[in-house]
């Protein structure tokens, strides 16, 4: 596994583990007086997930798909149907 892929895979693995925020499971504090702390945590966690997918698109995108795109830019015809009558 190349370095960017390994780093991004590790990033998602850490996010997966951090989803289980048991340390706040009984904490009713309201962040900014509005959001329960666990809910605020998960909202921020969601944004970190979006950032992770941006990293995927930027640093470990399967570029062979783009190349295959250029090689087959005509959509394949449906299988051997007869021409319209």
């Amino acid at each position, binding site marked *: 596994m190349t370095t960017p892929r390994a780093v991004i895979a590790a990033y*998602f693995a850490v*996010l*997966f583990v951090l*989803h*289980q*925020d*048991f340390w*706040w*499971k*009984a*904490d*009713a504090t*309201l962040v*900014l*007086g*509005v*959001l*329960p702390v*666990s*809910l605020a945590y*998960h*909202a921020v*966690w*969601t*944004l970190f*997930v*979006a950032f992770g*997918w*941006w990293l*995927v*698109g930027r640093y470990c*995108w*399967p570029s*062979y*798909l*783009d*190349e*295959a*795109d250029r*090689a*087959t830019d005509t*959509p*394949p*015809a*449906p*299988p*051997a*149907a*007869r*021409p*319209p*009558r």
Partner: protein
Amino acid sequence: MIPVVILGSYLLVLIGLGLVSARYFRGSSADYFVASRSLGPFVLFMTVFGTAMTAFAMVGSTAETFEHGVGTYGKLASWSALVHPACFFLIGLPLWALGKRHGYVTQIEYFRDRFESPGLGYVLFPVLAGLLLPYLVIGLLGVGSVVGGVTVGAFPEAFAATRGAVPPWLTMAILSGVVLFYVFIGGARSAALVNVFQTVVFVGMGLLAFWLIADSLGGPAAASAAAKPAKAIREGNIGELEFFTYWMIPLSVGVFPHIFQNFLTARSARSYKLLLVMHPVAMLLAWLPCILIGFWATGATLPGTGTPVVPPGGSANAVLGLMVAKLTSPVVSGLVAAGVLAAISLDAQFIAMGTMFTRDIVVHRFGAARFTDRDLVRIARGFIVAMVALTYALTFLETRQIFALGTWCFSGFAGLVPLLLAALYWRRVTRAAACAAVVVTASVWFALFAASDFGADRKFLVGGMLPVATVFASCTVTVVLVSLLTSPPSAATLAKFFPSNPTTPCPAN
């Protein structure tokens, strides 16, 4: 009467969008089934997001938070924000490439080729269609219930039995007719355009309701301060193991036939980049307002009185409707109801059913050479008409069991993910393993479903975990064990699906 006018206008817009998209319909089956694989990043994102979301994102999330606290966001929305894009990237993208390379339009076409088994399709079709039907029935029932709730008193003489509300049978018939209209004339292209509009409406109306309700309760801080602290935490509302195993539920998007077909509509691989990044952000925008409305409902009182907005003992599913109706205006009630309708997208499911029947049963059984391209579109349209009629008829059955079955459908689809992942990434997986996995997954799913008294036991868990964990594990073990005990796939199949140079165009196409 105002909500009726707003909902009627919303349905007219759908019909108008269907007519507009029909002008671009090219008449071919490729256009009808997968919009000629021509959708760009923005439309792909809006279509996939709109299709993956259900009415649960608005009505259910509010109800669940009201009953079980704000952990609802963590167990459903944030897991989906991670797992859905993972499915798009690890399953959707490779399947899109394979679909483009080999001309696949349905999952079954791929499975038949990958596992060298024409018969596998006849096993998979009833399983996939059988799990999809209750999903459609729930969508229609949801529409009937929402419209009934916001139109009470609109037609006191015509519909006295429902206190003047538009009766569910009529609402469902009208919506079925509208969906059938735009799907019939434009197929996947119509559905894509309608889904873009629906996604804007459903996210926008959630935010609007949030803003106005917060204002009515004295601002977000006052509303949160009045809410029950017991609903601000997870302890006492959901077990830690149960909370964890919710990550498996969103895996179902990797196997949903209609999402699979959405994957294939992309113009290029690059179209997926926006979908991956924006899906989690859209999840946050769509879910957070509704979660907070559900949380606030636990302590909300009518301004100037001490009367609770949600009366004690009331149905949790009515929470969003009550909060909007009692704290905002009839116009907003109508707009939010339109938002709920927009979240209930049935078009992609109907198109997927029509496509599977046409390609996986009719064409496979009688041969492609017997049909013109226009014949294929006609067959798909005919089957879609039959499915819409069947779905409508099923709404008249006893609803409790259908609702229960619906929640179990997600577990059934998610349970098949190990097979799909193995097909894409494991050269050693065999035809026997695929057949065994489908049978074992369906059997385990049904056994657990029966053990839960066919869904009546809403808190049914296996060892503290959701039943999907057992279904998922059964499928994984079956795929691995049976593959290792049976002969590997042929060299030709491996060369086709694991080419040494994947950028080379497929010679067959």
